[in-house]
């Protein structure tokens, strides 16, 4: 997929020192992404496409590319519906 995901206005993805975990802060919403989602979201930079994000993860993690692609697509679809990510 060639779509380039970006965080929507007012959305902040940052490390929280109190929890020792990454958090995704959005208007009146708070997401606590799991390990997989954290790795995906770290690659959201406004230039990488969804395909490029899958390529990057496939090169670094020992899992079939199709499975990674499915995870990535599901994560972005969910966060798009919930208003955190623009596709």
């Amino acid at each position, binding site marked *: 997929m060639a779509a380039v995901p970006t965080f*929507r*206005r007012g959305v*902040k993805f940052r490390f929280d020192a*109190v*929890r020792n975990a990454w958090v995704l*802060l959005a*208007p009146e919403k*708070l997401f606590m992404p799991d390990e997989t989602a954290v790795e995906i979201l770290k690659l959201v930079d406004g230039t990488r496409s969804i395909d490029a994000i899958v390529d990057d993860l496939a090169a670094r993690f020992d899992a079939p590319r199709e499975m990674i692609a499915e995870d990535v697509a599901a994560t972005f679809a969910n966060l*798009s519906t919930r208003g955190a990510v623009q*596709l």
Partner: protein
Amino acid sequence: MGLIAELTHRCPLQCAYCSNPLALDDRKAELTTDEWRRVLGEAAALGILQVHFSGGEPMARRDLVEMVAHASSLGLYTNIITSGVLLTDEAMAALLAAGIDHIQLSFQDAAAPAADRFSGYRGGHAKKLDAARRICEAGLPLTANFVVHKQNAERVGEMIALGEALGAERIEIAHTQYYGWALLNRNALLPTFAQLEHVNGVVAAARQRLNGRITIDYVVPDYYAARPKACMGGWGNRFINISPSGKALPCHAAETLPGFQFPTVRDVSLAEIWVDSDAFSRFRGVDWMPELCRACDRKEIDWGGCRCQALALAGDAAATDPACAHSPDHHLMGAAVTAADGAPLDLVPRRLRTLSA
């Protein structure tokens, strides 16, 4: 975790569905700027991530900008829940410079005559339209909030259209929650089942149409529910609400609960309140629950529902929320719906001194 900072109960609007308590805090009792600064620092240290400046009308506090700047410097995500009628160009610029992250703007209806009648503030709707424009021009995400009830439910489609036209990122369609002033005015506000179905249908269609563009958050009315809402995401689980005079509450309606000594941030640190206070521990988790709830496989989904509603309707804060179909008091919800059907539409406006004077 979120902190709801109710900076003041003062408000230029008089919405009869306000969920503030009937006994509103006086200006003289409000926490000072320095006290709020300390509370915000304690909140950040405790792991609070988002602060929601609310009220009353938070912009009625002249020190709001200073508090937003302080919260922002602590790394807190800052949100203002406002009527917008005080959001001038100058105020918008100052808030932006202070690092505000998001603004939720309330509307009372889709258009002026009705909206101004519900808010009791002539010209208010026009000021809100200006406020929405300023928020969007500042590049901030906007949530347009609409509270729906019997007297405006037919216009939910127009409300969503207004949110779209204003460029909102998020639209909140919230059925009135019956606490405080709204409970007092329940007969004139509670929609019929046909109205609820209408709103449900319009929201479902709009969600599908706007998916990925505008998020629509929808708050349903308890009175037609089969399962209770997870009030505040569970008691003492995700939120701390600080009243204008500094009382720490697990939810903004909790002051109505008898037999509680709610700690004040003037005397006790937020961490002690969160971890040690009886007020925050009493209904936390599942151990306090009646047998009916403890045996339920949804106990960690809805957390037994709302304690204030259990008190207001069933007369016992520790009872199963009557919104639950399994509650022995569930018939009270149906009785309230029947009582509201065809009832007069007169509303008691929210005012600082309507009842106490």
